[in-house]
């Protein structure tokens, strides 16, 4: 059930990885709740432009698309400049962009280890460093990082992906501690199996029934992760920081 109560009215958010999966659902939920959004994606596409135009019209919010590849620091800096030049107060940063990878420890290639860490950890680390400077100046800010239960549970095949997400969880907790005096809070959402393209990198036997089963033993919908991201961005969670919220239906 998506929250559409204008919980984020008057707020501006920056969300990475908005073109599909969880990021797209968060963009949709934030717009439905009245937030203006800098929607970061890797490449411009007619489909994405159409999507944000529809959201803008439907919810009467501003959605500004920004384009950068997580591994291209020059593109990232250019995007940070655009955000800074807008002079808008940045209330929320959602670090969502990431890539999946599933391989046994002994079969994990070093180039894939580097690629996963570049996209899943280094990019959000640097992007957050840039945007936190704006938040320090504002004396307020809210950082939400999408990690994974794989970063907590250390499942087979997840030595690389899980480690990159565990690094994000550590980063989140450190930011929450170091910057609490600046009015900046940081939390992480750890989704379990979620109905996104990332499932394609998993063996079939791990994929549960994604039908609308009434019980919790199923794959999550991206909108269910987005609902938690709305809660964490809203004033309903004003005194919550340094936490990791599992959204996995209790399934391990």
């Amino acid at each position: 059930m998506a929250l559409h109560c204008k919980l984020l009215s008057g707020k501006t958010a920056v969300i990475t990885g908005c073109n599909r999966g969880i990021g797209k659902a968060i963009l949709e939920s934030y717009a439905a709740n009245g937030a203006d959004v800098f929607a970061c994606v890797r490449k411009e596409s007619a489909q994405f432009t159409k999507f944000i135009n529809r959201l803008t019209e439907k919810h009467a919010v501003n959605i500004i698309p920004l384009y950068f590849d997580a591994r291209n620091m020059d593109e990232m800096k250019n995007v940070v400049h655009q955000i800074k030049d807008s002079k808008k107060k940045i209330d929320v940063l959602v670090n969502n962009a990431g890539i999946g990878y599933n391989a046994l420890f002994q079969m994990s290639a070093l180039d894939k280890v580097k690629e996963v860490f570049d996209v899943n950890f280094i990019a959000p680390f640097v992007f957050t460093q840039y945007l936190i400077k704006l938040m320090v100046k504002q004396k307020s800010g809210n950082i939400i990082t999408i990690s994974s239960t794989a970063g907590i549970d250390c499942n087979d095949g997840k030595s690389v992906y899980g480690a990159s997400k565990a690094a994000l969880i550590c980063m989140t907790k450190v930011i929450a501690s170091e910057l609490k005096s600046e009015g900046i809070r940081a939390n992480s959402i750890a989704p379990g199996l979620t109905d996104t393209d990332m499932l394609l990198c998993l063996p079939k036997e791990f994929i549960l029934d994604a039908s609308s089963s009434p019980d919790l033993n199923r794959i999550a919908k991206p909108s269910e992760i987005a609902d938690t991201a709305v809660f964490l961005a809203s004033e309903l969670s004003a005194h919550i920081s340094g936490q990791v919220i599992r959204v996995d239906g209790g399934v391990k």
Partner: protein
Amino acid sequence: MTNIEKYNQTFVSSFSVKEEKLLTLSYQSVDGWDSIGHMRMIAELEEIFDIMIETNDILDFSSYVKGFEILKKYGVAL
């Protein structure tokens, strides 16, 4: 206001020091210039001069005087 006046004012207001003390001012030499104060001062300089200081330069920014050299890299002449 000239660039040097803006630069000096940032230090004076960030760390509550007198302008005549600036030449000897360095990181952690006064109470306010701790890591949090450092990031606030960097954010202030970025705002005033409309620049984005790289992390390595933030770490190198060890004194008032060193700041001249670093800001020059970003096209800010003091």
